[in-house]
C-alpha cells in the first residue's frame, strides 16, 4: 500500500523563483533564504519519494474569474509552467501521476469533499517555487507531482478546519492505493504577508512562529482558528497558510499514530514582501 512518509511546508514567494532563475542566489539579500533550504535539498534526495502531493494556490493564472474551484486536483499526465506575465519560468515540465491522482479524487469525493477534477492546468509560481527550493536547479523534477489547487484568492476561502479534515481524507485515500509508493504531501504559501493597500508589507514574526509551534504540536486546535485571525494578524495574503493544514491533516498522528519528527525548521524575513517559513515533518 502507498503511504505518506513526510510532509513539507514552505512559502512560495515568486521573487524566490526569479532570484534562482536570474542567478542571484548568492547575493547577500538572498543567501540567507536559500541557506535555509540546504538541508532540505539533501533530505529530499535521500528520501526519494515516488510522488509528491503538492497543495498550492493559483494566483489568477490557470483560474481567472471564469471559474473559481475551491479545491481542484490535477489528474493530467503533465502540467506546463505558466507565463504569469513575465514569461514562463525556465523550469522543467511537471509530470503528473494520473493513476494515483484519479484514485485520490475518487476516494476523497466519496469521503464528502467535492473536488474539482482538472485535466488541463498551467501551474504558476505557487507550485514551481516550492519545487525549486526543495530540488534546486534541475533538468527534471525528481518524481511525479499531483498539483492540488486551493482557492485562497476570492473570499470566502475554505476554513482551516475544512482543510485539516480534507488532509485526513487525503491520507485515507493514499493509504488505500495498492502500489507500495512513498508519497510526500507538501503544504505551501504564507507566511505573514500583505500585498495590497496601505497596510502592504505587514509581517508578524511572533504570530508566524506561534503558528509553526502549533502546527507541530496542536494542529487540531490550530485548525479551529477563524479566517479573521489570519488576515488581521498575518495579512490579507497570509490566509494562504490554511493550505498548510491540509498537509498537516494527512500526517499519521492525526489518525491516532505517533507524533511526527521535526526534521527541519526555518524562518526568515524578508523575501520581497513576505516572511518565509519552512518545516519538514517525518511520520513515525
Amino acid at each position, binding site marked *: 500500500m502507498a503511504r505518506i512518509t513526510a510532509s513539507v511546508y514552505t512559502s512560495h514567494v515568486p*521573487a524566490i523563483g526569479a532570484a534562482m532563475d536570474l542567478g542571484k542566489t548568492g547575493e547577500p539579500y538572498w543567501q540567507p533564504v536559500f541557506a535555509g533550504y540546504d538541508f532540505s535539498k539533501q533530505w529530499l534526495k535521500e528520501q526519494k519519494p515516488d510522488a509528491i502531493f503538492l497543495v498550492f494556490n493559483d494566483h489568477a493564472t490557470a483560474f481567472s474569474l471564469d471559474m473559481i474551484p475551491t479545491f481542484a486536483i490535477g489528474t493530467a499526465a503533465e502540467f506546463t509552467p505558466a507565463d504569469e*506575465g513575465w514569461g514562463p519560468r525556465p523550469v522543467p515540465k511537471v509530470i503528473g501521476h494520473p493513476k494515483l491522482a484519479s484514485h485520490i479524487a475518487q476516494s476523497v469525493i466519496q469521503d464528502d469533499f467535492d473536488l474539482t477534477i482538472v485535466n488541463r492546468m498551467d501551474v504558476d509560481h505557487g507550485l514551481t517555487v516550492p519545487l525549486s527550493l526543495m530540488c534546486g536547479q534541475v533538468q527534471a523534477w525528481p518524481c511525479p507531482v499531483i498539483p492540488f489547487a486551493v482557492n485562497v*484568492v476570492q473570499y470566502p476561502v475554505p476554513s482551516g478546519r475544512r482543510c485539516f479534515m480534507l488532509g485526513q481524507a487525503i491520507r485515507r485515500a493514499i493509504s488505500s492505493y495498492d502500489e507500495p509508493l512513498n508519497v510526500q504531501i507538501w503544504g505551501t504559501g504564507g507566511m505573514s504577508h500583505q500585498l495590497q493597500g496601505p*497596510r*502592504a508589507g505587514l509581517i*508578524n514574526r511572533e504570530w508566524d512562529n506561534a503558528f509553526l509551534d502549533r502546527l507541530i504540536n496542536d494542529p487540531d486546535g490550530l485548525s479551529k482558528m477563524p479566517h479573521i485571525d489570519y488576515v488581521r494578524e498575518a495579512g490579507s*495574503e497570509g490566509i494562504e497558510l490554511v493550505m498548510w493544514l491540509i498537509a498537516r491533516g494527512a500526517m499519521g498522528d492525526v489518525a491516532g499514530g505517533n507524533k511526527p519528527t521535526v526534521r527541519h525548521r526555518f524562518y526568515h524575513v524578508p523575501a520581497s514582501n513576505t516572511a518565509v517559513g519552512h518545516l519538514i515533518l517525518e511520520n513515525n
Partner: protein
Amino acid sequence: MALDKPYKDIPGTTIFDADMSRQGYHLNQFCMSLMKAENRARFKANERAYLDEWPMTEEQKQAVLARDLNRCIALGGNIYFLAKIGATDGKSFQQMAGSMTGMSEEEYRDMMVKGGRSIEGNRHLGEKK
C-alpha cells in the same frame, strides 16, 4: 440578513470577497487578458482604446490609466489580477505593493529588509499607533 464581514475592521486592507469580485469582474478579466503578449502590445499602443473594449466603469478605466492600485482595489480589483498590469509595465511585485503604501520604492524596500510593517497599531481601524 446581512453577512458578517469582520474583516471590514482591518485598516488599509480590502478583502476580495464575492461582492468585490462581482464589482470588479470586468476589471479583473481585462487584467487577465494581459497574460497574452499580443494583448499587452495592443494595450500599450493605445491604453484608452483597449480599455474601451471592456464593459468596465469609467471610474475603473481612469484608475487603470492612472495606475492607482488602491483605487482599482476599491473598485473591485484584486491584486493578483492587477499584477498583470504591473507585469505589462515591467514592475516587480514589490514595486506594486509599495506603490499602495504612500512610501517611496526605497523606503518600502528598507522597511521590508528591517522586518516589514509592524502589526502593532495595524490590527483595527482607529487603533492608536
